[in-house]
């Protein structure tokens, strides 16, 4: 098993609210959270995709995770709401890490095995959010119904559960979310994996999209010392080139 993660804390304008959200997540035992920037591209005009603010601008000091001695890790995440795509296209072709299952309405379609299996093979996960279920009883019915419908196709694999919380009272502890997973039809171990190991796979999958399949990446280093003198004895080809690091 890996550390517990909540990969969806909705970004709001209120800085102190966000700070309280991260504090509560750390207190509940989550070691990693992701702040979710939701972007819905408008139909007519072009809008710029929001760029994530560095975390030290939003929160001064990251709180320590409950029961440990290290601070919580805060990541950034972009969610794009696609209005004009099919479920099939999203599962098979889109270059994404997470496909969110909506909870605001009863889904008009059933999840078919083929695209779901295709997504699972590519390493894409499906996400179910639970904070809407806390806010409203109708949403609760839709959340459970949609989650069970998804479970029948994906059999509990490649599923993550996250809060999509806007306020700190909508967060729940990791073992409580495991219980919620039982309601969705997951087994005990599957539900626990949905908030730990599968979330870790999502983060690794996101890394592989940035790099050449996660094997080679380049990073800039700050060179402190001076360049070697031009009359150095080593042949030119073997002198270190400070601006490239593999």
């Amino acid at each position, binding site marked *: 098993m890996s550390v*517990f993660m909540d990969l969806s804390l909705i970004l709001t304008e209120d800085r102190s609210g966000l700070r309280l959200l991260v504090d509560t997540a750390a207190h509940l035992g989550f070691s990693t959270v992701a702040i979710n920037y939701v972007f819905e591209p408008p139909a007519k005009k072009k809008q710029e995709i929001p760029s994530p603010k560095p975390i030290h601008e939003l929160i001064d000091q990251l709180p320590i995770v409950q029961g440990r001695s290290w601070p919580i890790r805060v990541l950034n995440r972009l969610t794009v709401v696609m209005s004009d795509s099919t479920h099939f296209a999203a599962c098979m072709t889109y270059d994404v890490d997470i496909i969110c299952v909506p909870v605001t309405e009863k889904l008009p379609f059933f999840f078919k095995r083929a695209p779901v299996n295709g997504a699972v093979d590519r390493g894409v996960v499906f996400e179910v959010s639970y904070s809407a279920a806390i806010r409203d009883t109708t949403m609760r019915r839709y959340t459970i119904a949609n989650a*069970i419908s998804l479970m029948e196709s994906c059999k509990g694999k490649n599923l993550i559960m996250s809060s999509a919380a806007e306020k700190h009272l909508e967060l729940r502890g990791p073992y409580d979310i495991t219980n919620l997973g039982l309601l969705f039809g997951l087994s005990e171990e599957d539900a626990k994996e949905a908030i730990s190991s599968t979330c870790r796979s999502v983060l690794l999958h996101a890394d592989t999209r940035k790099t050449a399949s996660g094997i080679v990446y380049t990073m800039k280093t700050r060179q402190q010392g001076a360049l070697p003198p031009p009359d150095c004895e080593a042949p030119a080809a073997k002198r270190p080139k400070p601006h490239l690091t593999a």
Partner: protein
Amino acid sequence: MWTDLTRTPRTLLVCERSSFLDEKSRLREQVEQLHFNYKVSVLLPECDSAPSHLEAAFKSFSSFYLIKKLPLFELLDKNFLEAAVYQGNVYGLSYRTRIDEDNCVALMPNGQLCLSLDKDSFEMLGLEGKPSRFNHRAASRYVVSLDLTDSRMAPGGRGYQRVLTGLTSRVQLQMDILLSHHPGGGAALQSLLSRYSWTELTPEVSKRRLTQLPCPTLLTSDLQSCDPHSFLEWLGAVDADVSCENSSSSFLSSLVCPEPMTTASHVLSISICGLLVPQDVHRLIQELRCYLEPPCKAPWVALTVHGFSDSPVTWGSREHGALRGGEHFYTLLLFPDHTYRLHLATGAHDNCPP
């Protein structure tokens, strides 16, 4: 696809009945094999205040040390190995690490070092290990067991160098460690204590006096007057201070005292918390046996010993895990005629207790 929500994760309960006078009694081994004990709770029915020899026994549990941010390669330090590990009886456990989330470490008194690592740490460390028995679909937890007393792990040897290189240059594992040396105390641990920030802690003893408590009537260990599951549930409710009245107006608890029951006028509940070594627990059991001898009127005494829920090992060096809760404990029910009933219990991610 609808799962049965009334089903709880599986638990195991082993019940044994024997006598202290029986030569084949395995109690000593069973007590000594649970190396890392977190809490000892004693329930003394019909007792207002504990006699002085018992009070002394409660306060005589060995103290232990908490070392903050100890790099793990220090456990391979030559001076530490010679002064403490090779002599035996050093107990070490990582503190504030969760067995189902983080890397955990246990140093057992026979010199075995057990590392329970997540996938990334195991792959980077590069030591030989096995996947955990409680992995689900993909292996995400691995267990590395090193015998520090083995000749290959002697300082300077190839095995030793490999582990040292792994812990110093590949993955610099560092965690808070609870250490206890019995019966040496801090002297044998000086090589580590002198270089890192440490605190000496003594086990915390707390007492509660309860009056008019309904207790199950346990006649002797021969007669099955009470089913072990309901007895343990009642004992847990008393320890957790949960009411067993089951009144119709309260929805908090529907736990009841198992029948047949009597009402005890005074009951004393004592609990001791800390890193408790099995030798101290064994000594307490002998003192409780002396307490039960006549003229004591107590019908029975219950002693419960809980293991650390985040320990990588349970009885012996069996692997321990946590699914919902990492419970592994035993309850010893002592009777005045030198007989006892022992209940050993573990949770979902554990194998059968001895």
